[in-house]
């Protein structure tokens, strides 16, 4: 039974070896070949847009959430449309109609958010 998991163990071992190897290797090559001109910005961990260490209770612009919600909606729409397009031959007119009902509902939502000004950044 446990023998079945041997490939997984092997995979973990190799993965760890490559990961650690790459880390150590790049560090070694860096110290040997690179120019070292550190400054605080370079040494701080990379975070997209935010300070890495500060109070977590800061004010978020509510528009982040708005964009996130709108993104999810249309992202999902695409996620539905691709498989639908692939099997359209088999599901026929019924599938076609079902998708257009779904798109119709989304269009109403889209018109609503547009007219309400949810897409205007300033």
């Amino acid at each position, binding site marked *: 039974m446990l023998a079945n998991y041997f490939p997984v163990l092997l995979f973990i071992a190799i993965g760890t070896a490559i990961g650690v190897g790459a880390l150590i290797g790049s560090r070694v090559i860096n110290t040997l070949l690179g120019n070292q001109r550190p400054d605080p910005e370079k040494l701080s961990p990379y975070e997209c847009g935010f300070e890495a260490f500060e109070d977590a209770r800061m004010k978020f612009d509510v528009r982040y959430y708005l964009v996130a919600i709108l993104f999810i909606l249309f992202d999902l729409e695409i996620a539905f449309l691709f498989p639908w397009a692939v099997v359209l031959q088999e599901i026929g007119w*019924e599938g076609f109609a079902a998708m257009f009902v779904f798109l119709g*509902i989304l269009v*109403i939502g889209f*018109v*609503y958010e547009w*007219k*309400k000004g949810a897409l205007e950044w300033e």
Partner: protein
Amino acid sequence: MNHNIILALPEVTLLILIGGIMMVDLFSAPEKRADRLMGLAVITLLIVGAAVYNPFVEARFAFNGMFVVDGMAAVLKVAMAACLLIGLLYSRDHLEKRGLFTGEYVMLMLFALLGMMVMVSANNFVTLYLGLEIQALSVYALVALQRDSARASEAAMKYFILGALASGLLLYGISMVYGATGSLDIEQVAKSVGFSQGNTALLAFGLVFVVAGLAFKLGVVPFHMWVPDVYHGAATPTTMLLSTAPKIAAFAFIVRILGDGLAGMAGDWQLMLVFLAVLSLAIGNIVAIAQTNLKRMLAYSTISHMGFLVLGILAGTNNGYSSSMFYVVTYALTALASFGMILLLSREGFEAENLEDFKGLNQRSPWHAFLMLIVMFSLAGIPPTVGFFAKLSVLQAALEAGWVWLVVFAVLMSVIGAFYYLRVVKLMYMDAPVDTAPIGGNAVAGSLLTVNTFALLLLGLLPSGLLELCRRAIAASF
């Protein structure tokens, strides 16, 4: 493929009309918007009520058994649409004076109705959950709509977090039921539970979580923490909405899951419901005595009424279900009248939500005091109001099922409960008024409130029509 989409006609119509209302809201001039929204919302509710299928036929299935239209679903859908309609007529002035009568309010209300209609017609755990979430998300947003009020925001936050937790518990329970029975279809689950196939330990474990989730949604002790805060914090029209139609939907939800799907485990869930009923009756009635805010008092009163509702369901018989159905429908009607009165006595910048605002109401307006008297009698369960017959039929059903001590306990608790309802009557008739402003209010809302209150009296004198309707609806469904 067996879609039978025609059976979902009320839901489909509602969805299309909501889409239409959204567009009208967008493209109307601001000064015409409120009237148009009101008109369209009323028309929508009337159409949806009319589109509901005839209740007295066999259960019919749509979408490959995901969706069922039967007597219970049809009657409850009409009841919910009526609740929303009456509530909307009561609350328009109140909302408009506070700048809350917006397209969002109307749409969220109708979306909540859509969710509740899906809930009462669901024949699959996934459909049930889908309906529940449509309803819950709309209602969270409705509570939060008054976003400048710190109390409303706090209430919305509490409601959202506890509601999300409850949904999680419910889903966890449903996943275990699925694990034990291998199906999400309510009939299939009922079959495999009935033949005691599958893992009973897992099933019992799932049942605990399902009951906890349902209890949260219904707001019974010990899962009642959100009820007083949300009732108090939300704008009164939203509180009214919360305490009427969602309770009806929650009733259907519980009967479908416990009475239908998990009927084979009645022995297990009855004991859990006994626990919930006893605690709700005790805590609801006793804590309500200490309240000085009428909305908070009515919140605790709801908890105790939900205890009665659970009492009928735990009888586990058709008679019990139909009594509970009668109870929840008449409770919704009574709650509409009580919140309608708060709305009518409120005016711009003033909420008549404290008990002392009702002091000496008889001197200010004998007619309003009389109406409130009937409402309070009905909530307390004093004949000849409908509250008495609702309690009587539930107690009878529980008695027939053999729960004698529970019935005695419920009667004792409703005697305690009568105290705080009668206190309102005492304040209205025997105290001097604190607030002396004239009672205004919209004529439509005022006359509707009179009709609503007299309906409580009429149903109390002639309860057999509605009782028979509930009985036939349940008999056609199970």
